[in-house]
């Protein structure tokens, strides 16, 4: 995709945002009318000189007044057309682009988890912010200018040919080399501007690192090293910016040389033609004015083409994201609803590998009964988290099938799946809002009383009342005003109010302070009651309290059964895990 040409990108972009073409015809007509007004002035000058100022009997004021009055009218119409055109352009382009922003935003959320995680967060954000801003800026500044410039170019060219085809040819010839140079520079400009964008990214990364890692940098006394890196990324950016500037000025100035050539050529050829009587003084004068009208758009166009490179690059980045088909897709209308009632789980010969990576799970074949509590245990890297992700369809297996109550997961509509199957991820991510709003995320219709009731039911009301503003307490960015354990509490309540039939808990690995831990365990117990629960357990206490334990090792299920029986199997992986864990907590 990246090798695609500018025009191809613009075509693809227009196809995806057809709104951009709304009323384009009218906008162009208005632009041409606005241009026509500008060309009226040189014509007025010609007419004024030939028929008024240099009238046979001395300057004829009446003629001049008439010409000026007519032109004034034309100017007023032109100004009005300009106003209408700009309004239309802004309304149409901003409406279309806000649609593009929203579509891209939704599309990014629809991408699979693996896709989302392979992108830097900042670059995803830029797809719906600065990349669109670039297109908008280009369409409105560059786009208007380019439209007007093209109009001006065409109209003035036509008028020039009407006055004198010979002189018009001279002007076109004079600009020939400039056009060649500008075309030649386009590729190079694209390169230098790409370098600027890349280095901006590197610089921002370095700054972010120095801010986020400030404490580490301080405590290791490595400010010097960090500053050196920052300075070089800042300096690299400056050098790239200056190089881009030099290139664009060189390209721009070729138009200027064209203008000089045109003026000189018009005078030389014009005088010869005029001496032969083929041209009037007014016509030649008008021509000199027309040349400047012709130069302006050429220069503006050169500048705009540079900006266009930026805008097109942004557009391309958005299109490339939109082109990615979500690989874990919602079957939507073709999908089915999950059967009513408690859910059972079946893994039918399931294998999984990350794209290009080694096999993480292989040949997993098991059935989990409805309403029972299961704990999946295993060492770090054994594949137990993958298990949870397949179960919630954050990923699809490479082989085999996952079924809920006999229905293949891939055929279940997301609306049904997400309301019946809820996962509590390791880091209970909270939004920068109040506790209440974070819980309403799962169920927007809940009233304050219902929210409070949920806390009461889970035995967490004393904790809630201990918060400065109760339900209305702000949790801060990513929930950072709360402790890790408290964030998990809120995430748990959020899962509880969603009232799922299958609950998947990816247990947090980090330690939580004892008081919160006790609350958390108690609440967990209540949340899981009566639901099919699969807990990815890092603490064996969770396994101990489960109805059944599933032991995963090196991507395979090696043991399953109640805790007491598995522990008794001497020399088994679970017995070993348990023994070492016991040693840790009871030393």
């Amino acid at each position, binding site marked *: 995709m990246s090798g695609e040409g500018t025009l191809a990108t613009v075509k693809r972009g227009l196809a995806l945002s057809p709104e951009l073409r709304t009323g384009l015809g009218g906008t162009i007509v208005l632009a041409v009318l606005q241009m026509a007004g500008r060309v009226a002035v040189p014509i007025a000058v010609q007419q004024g000189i030939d028929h008024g*100022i240099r009238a046979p009997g001395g300057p004829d004021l009446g003629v001049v007044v008439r010409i*000026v009055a007519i032109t004034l009218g034309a100017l007023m119409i032109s100004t009005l057309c300009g106003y209408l055109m700009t309004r239309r352009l802004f309304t149409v382009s901003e409406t279309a682009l806000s649609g593009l922003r929203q579509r891209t935003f939704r599309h990014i959320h629809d991408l699979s988890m693996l896709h989302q995680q392979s992108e830097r967060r900042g670059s*995803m954000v830029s797809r719906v912010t600065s990349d669109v801003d670039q297109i908008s800026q280009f369409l409105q500044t560059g786009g208007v200018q380019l439209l007007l410039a093209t109009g001006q170019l065409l109209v003035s060219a036509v008028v020039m040919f009407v006055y004198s085809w010979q002189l018009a040819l001279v002007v076109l010839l004079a600009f020939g080399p400039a056009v060649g140079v500008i075309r030649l520079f386009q590729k190079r400009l694209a390169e230098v501007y790409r370098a600027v964008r890349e280095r901006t990214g590197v610089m921002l990364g370095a700054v972010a690192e*120095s801010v986020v890692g400030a404490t580490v940098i301080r405590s290791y006394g490595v400010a010097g090293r960090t500053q050196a890196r920052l300075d070089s990324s800042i300096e690299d950016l400056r050098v790239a910016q200056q190089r881009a500037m030099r290139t664009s000025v060189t390209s721009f100035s070729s138009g200027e040389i064209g203008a000089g050539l045109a003026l000189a050529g018009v005078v*030389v050829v014009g005088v010869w033609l*005029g001496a032969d009587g083929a041209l009037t003084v007014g016509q030649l004068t008008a021509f000199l004015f027309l040349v400047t009208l012709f130069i302006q758009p050429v220069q503006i166009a050169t500048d705009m083409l540079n900006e266009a490179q930026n805008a097109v690059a942004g557009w391309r980045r958005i299109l490339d994201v939109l082109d990615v088909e979500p690989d874990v897709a919602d079957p939507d209308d073709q999908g089915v609803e999950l059967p009513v009632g408690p859910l059972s789980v079946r893994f039918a010969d399931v294998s999984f590998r990350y794209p290009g990576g080694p096999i993480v799970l292989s040949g997993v074949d098991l059935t989990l009964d409805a309403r029972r509590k299961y704990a999946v245990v295993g060492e770090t890297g054994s594949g137990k988290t993958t298990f949870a992700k397949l179960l919630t369809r954050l990923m699809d297996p490479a082989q085999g099938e996952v079924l809920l109550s006999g229905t293949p997961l891939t055929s279940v509509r997301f609306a049904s799946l997400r309301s019946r199957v809820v996962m509590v991820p390791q880091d209970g991510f909270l*939004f920068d809002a109040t506790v209440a709003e974070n819980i309403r995320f799962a169920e927007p219709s809940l009233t304050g009383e219902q929210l409070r009731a949920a806390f009461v039911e889970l035995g967490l009301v004393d904790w809630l009342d201990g918060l400065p503003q109760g339900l209305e307490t702000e949790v801060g960015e990513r929930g950072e005003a709360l402790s890790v354990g408290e964030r998990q509490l809120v995430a748990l309540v959020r899962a509880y109010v969603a009232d799922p039939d299958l609950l998947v808990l990816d247990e947090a690995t980090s330690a939580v302070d004892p008081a919160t*831990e006790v609350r958390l365990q108690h609440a967990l117990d209540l949340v899981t009651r009566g639901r099919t629960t699969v807990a990815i357990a890092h603490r064996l206490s969770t396994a101990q309290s489960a109805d059944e334990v599933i032991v995963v090792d090196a991507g395979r299920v090696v043991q399953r059964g109640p805790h007491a029986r598995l522990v008794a199997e001497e020399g088994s992986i679970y017995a070993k895990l348990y023994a070492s864990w016991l040693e840790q907590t009871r030393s």
Partner: protein
Amino acid sequence: MLGRGLRVLGHAIRTEPRLFIVGAIGSSLFGLLIIANSYVVGWVIGHVVVPSFASHQVDTGRLWLVAAIFLGISGLRVASIFGRRLGAGFMQFRLQARYRRAVTGRYLSLPPAWHQRHATGTLLSNANSDVEAAWGPIAPLPFAVGTIVMLIAAMISLFLTDWVLALVGATLFPALFGLNLVYSRRMSPRQIRAQQMRGKVSAVAHESFDGALVVKTMGREADESRRFGVFVDELRDSLIAVGRLRGLFDPLMDSLPSLGTLAVLLLGAWRLRSGAIGVADVVSVAFLFTVLAFPVRAIGWVVGELPRSVAGWDRVRAVLDAEGDLAYGDGSLPGAGPAELRFDQVRFSYGEGPQILHDVSFTVPSGRTVALVGATGSGKSTIASLAVRLVDPESGSIGIDGVKLPDLALSALAGAAALVPQVPFVFDDTVRGNIALDRPGVDDEAVRDALALAQADRFVAGLPDGLDTAVGERGTSLSGGQRQRLTLARALAGKPRLLVLDDATSAVDPRVEAAILGALRASDARASVLVVAYRRATIALADQVVYLERGRVVATGTHAELMTFHAGYQDLVTAYEKAEHQE
């Protein structure tokens, strides 16, 4: 606003006087050439075109001279464009780079307490968009200065040509200028509003993508899109409002010079009839007005950017002027081997906040491991930060081997004491780079030893390029436990004499944690260790426990002693044990 904006510009000019002069001279030359060109055009019409059209004779020599003049002017104009654009551009880029260096330099020297008070996003935009905004008016500045020179020259030349035509200019130029000012004034609140909406849209997108997993698992994609849509719609409306104003002013500004040309034609015909001027003069002046319109806009660009510039500059200045740097002494820590850490009557509070620590005194004897135990909010992490001087106490003193921390040079302190924080921070670098941090004396062997001690050697060996594997932004390619072990290895690689672990193994399996702590105790390069602990196993490994309640040391002793004699301690530790074993 105008006054403050001009002061910011003045500061920029004083900082980069040479580039400004290059830009201003280029731009002035450009303006003067525009005027010259108009007069040449007028002169050519009056003295070359009219005579040869009348006589049907061409004065070839003169004609070539005219061509040469046009080409000469064109050449000079190219030079002036280079001067104007490169001068302005380079000035802007240099200022941006200079202030980015300055701002990030301040970030590195301001203390952690200052960082805690400022959101990451704010600091990022201080170094990026605020710096950009502050120097936004620099790009058109020389052009605007050149335009002013050009306008003055144009007025003079007009008065020299004919006072009546000069009056047209005297009306037109102030009108253009005034229209520009009105435009900027009315535009800037709209621009600011659009900018604010941009910020909101970006914040919502950032948060939403940050929580993408929760959005997905709760099936809230449609609702998130709606939430985003509300802000996007507001942004759209604010941008359309900008467009309407532009639609009103842009065509007006385009038409004004044309009105001037028409006025010149009218008045010129009248003056011509009375014989006051010639055809050449009318053509020159009319031509002048046609080409003037564009440069005059540069003044509007500068004025329009000023409010943004002042706002950006204020935010940049706030960082540059921030105070509270920690002053370091030049003391060193002679000797080798494990160091002793002593807290003596230490009190601490964050700013005006409540008292966090009350007269905390304890000692980590040389070579010993001391565990800090206490409920959430008892002040454990604050003690860890104080021990390596990330913050200074309100009163009381902290010393390593009898030397007070403020007397130590930063290098001496960083060399002797290492803190491993709760949340691991990994640089966008290779594994080796992350551990060595280019510190003298930390060679590959030290890196490997440290990795082994931190139980990280096995997973590092499994990475595609081993020590040379790039770990990505914030170490995204690693798991939480792996990141913790890397940061632990980073601390160990420097062979610290005092190691402070602030719950630094929380994301590591208990078995691995035990192996790490065991290796630490067994290794030759033993350090004194202060460890903030939750897990009972960690606590049990300590020689001594300091038990905290609400910022006070309420008991000190071995784990066994405290379990026997201190009810509060007993409750806490058993509560945790219960939590681990409940049901």
